[in-house]
């Protein structure tokens, strides 16, 4: 096993990986940009190295500086998290060249699955069902226009190099194609450093169902069942769950076996996710392989009891998978809500600023993977995910109720968040019924506005504001200090007396 590992990421996922390392007895090196000196991941790691200015291109995407930090600190391995360099084959092959273990797939497999277009070709050959669409990338708008015509509108623009909704656009008519292509390419460039995009047929009202995979370096592959991630806004998942309401054991086994075939056909190792679209007639299509740890991995951890990050590290260290497909089972139901700093009333535009007050829920079946703390700054430079709230319960109905309570007990003041929105989605009859397709938000919540707030909570808030105006004692620091001093201080009487002994 490694002695020391560098985490080439920030935020909640860096914190998650550092926790796993500490539990495994592995020393951790965090890297950070100048905007992140005070961030949580920097504080939690054993060592932290500043790798450059705030813009990601000069820090978290800067391969040379990250490699250098690893070498200076003698880290034997690098975990890339998700986003940034996680699916960048240049980075993983650079690690290989420098003799640093990359916690993820080998660069050849990453290269293959990362090129969404080549991956589609490979899948077609292996007999895996794929969505009709382009099988190579072009340079000219004209060629895209012709392809779109052949595929038939509406078409989907997708970044060849990555996922996460970045660069993704639905185009329903020819006259929107050019602008959408340009925007998609710019976003792809900014997110992945590669502007290539391709077109696919738009499947109507699909569910997004994906299978988590673990594959060791010796050809052993297991799937850890599915996650359904149909609830998306701006083509980005916000709510994920397992099991999916759309799968029965037969379909689950069938898709799971196809997912393993995908991994085998691409020579993929370590943790990965095979994404499918499932249409209403239970046909499923290969979408892509996410060659990384995913944001929603905790959902699978809760229903299988496996620590995916620890298994990733063990696999990277050359250990064999210590489980068989038949020994794995899904227990209960898990749901994840991503808590973003964003404004659901304003098309989910990101928000930034200082967290003025934070309360995180706790109790049975509640897990928080958080990247924030009270008084921390949420910088404008990076993905606005603050934390993830994941609940587990015996069944889906109980999990929904638990999530609603947990969201109610999550308080974040100072930046806008999607908390109230998430609560309404989970509480909606359609969600509770399990009628979840990728157009769910557009269909049911396109006009959502928190202005439908309870008039009574507004009155209570006004009372609280009046009370605080009247009664400044808590805002007056000296008075607060007095209150504290008045209370009993255990240190005043530092243990001279012992119970039942001679004093």
């Amino acid at each position, binding site marked *: 096993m490694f002695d020391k590992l560098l985490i080439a990421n920030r935020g909640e996922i860096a914190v998650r990986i550092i926790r796993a390392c500490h539990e495994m007895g592995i020393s951790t090196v965090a890297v950070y940009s100048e905007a992140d000196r005070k961030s949580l991941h920097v504080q939690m790691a054993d060592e932290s190295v500043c790798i450059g200015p705030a813009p990601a291109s000069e820090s978290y995407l800067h391969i040379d500086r990250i490699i250098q930090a690893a070498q200076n600190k003698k880290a034997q391995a690098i975990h890339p998290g998700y986003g940034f360099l996680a699916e960048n084959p240049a980075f993983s092959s650079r690690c290989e060249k420098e003799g640093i273990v990359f916690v993820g797939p080998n660069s050849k497999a990453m290269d293959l699955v990362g090129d969404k277009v080549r991956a589609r070709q490979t899948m077609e050959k292996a007999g895996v069902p794929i969505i009709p669409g382009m099988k190579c990338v072009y340079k000219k708008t004209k060629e895209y226009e012709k392809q779109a015509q052949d595929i038939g509108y509406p078409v989907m623009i997708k970044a060849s190099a990555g996922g996460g909704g*970045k660069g993704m656009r639905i185009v329903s008519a020819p006259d929107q194609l050019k602008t959408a292509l340009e*925007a998609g390419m*710019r*976003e792809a460039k*900014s*997110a992945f450093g590669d502007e290539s995009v391709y077109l696919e047929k738009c499947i109507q009202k699909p569910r997004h169902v994906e299978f988590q995979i673990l594959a060791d370096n010796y050809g052993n592959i297991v799937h850890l069942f599915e996650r359904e991630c149909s609830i998306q806004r*701006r083509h980005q998942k916000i709510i994920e769950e397992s099991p999916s309401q759309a799968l029965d054991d037969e379909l689950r086994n069938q898709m799971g076996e196809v997912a393993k075939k995908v991994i085998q056909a691409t020579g993929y190792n370590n943790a990965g996710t095979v994404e499918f679209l499932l249409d209403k007639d239970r046909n499923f299509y290969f979408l892509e392989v996410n060659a990384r740890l995913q944001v929603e991995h905790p959902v699978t951890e809760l229903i299988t009891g496996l620590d995916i990050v620890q298994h990733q590290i063990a696999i990277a260290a050359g250990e064999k998978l210590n489980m068989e497909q038949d020994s794995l089972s899904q227990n209960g139901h898990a749901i994840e809500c991503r808590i973003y700093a964003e*404004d659901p009333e*304003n098309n989910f*535009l*990101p*928000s*930034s600023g200082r967290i*003025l*007050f934070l*309360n995180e829920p706790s109790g049975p079946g509640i897990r928080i993977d958080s990247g924030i703390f009270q008084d921390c700054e949420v910088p*404008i*430079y*990076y*993905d*606005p995910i603050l934390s993830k709230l994941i609940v587990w319960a015996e069944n889906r109905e109980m999990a929904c109720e638990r999530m609603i309570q947990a*969201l*109610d007990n999550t*308080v*974040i*003041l*100072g930046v*806008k968040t999607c*908390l*109230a929105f998430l*609560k309404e989605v989970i509480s909606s009859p359609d969600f509770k019924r399990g009628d979840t397709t990728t157009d769910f938000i557009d269909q049911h919540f396109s006009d959502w506005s*928190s*202005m439908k*707030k*309870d008039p009574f*909570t*507004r*009155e*209570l*808030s*006004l*009372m*609280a*504001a*009046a*009370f*605080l*105006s*009247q*009664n400044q*004692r*808590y*805002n007056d620091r000296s008075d*607060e200090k007095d209150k504290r001093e008045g209370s009993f201080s255990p240190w005043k009487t530092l243990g001279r007396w012992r119970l039942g002994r001679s004093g």
Partner: protein
Amino acid sequence: MEYEFIVDNELKKLNMEQQGQSHSIHMDGHEYLADIKSLSPHIISISIKDRMYKIFIVRSKEGFHIQCQGDSYFIQESDQDEGEIQSSEEKSRKDMLNIKPTMPGKVIKIQVNEKEEIKVGQTLVIVEAMKMENEIKSSINGTVKKIFAAEGDLVDSDKPIMELEEKTE
């Protein structure tokens, strides 16, 4: 004591008087007898008829940031920002002419020039923040009066990027 607050663009008046251990509150024709306590600098407990409500609150110079039972509010003292109480229409009109980003970010592309004629729905500027692009479109027919930012600039959320002039027909 009388209080005047602005919340959700509305002016709200409230009267609160200490009455023994409790507070008597009048607001919008409602009357409440409430036991109000600070649980901590940022948590207030209001008890009305054996029901307890927890209000999370932070006061900043701009106003009170509040969350209560999942609902978020921003409340301002009305005397603090007299000029702010303008009709919603007036405010929205001003916003239509002064193009600001909704959040701090970087100007990626300015799609128009000064003096250029513009139409409703035309994209004026693309701003990127947190890896997402946001197109700001015009909601008027008219011309671009003045552009204050250049491509590549970091812009703040409350400073206009450009000013428009409406066509009067």
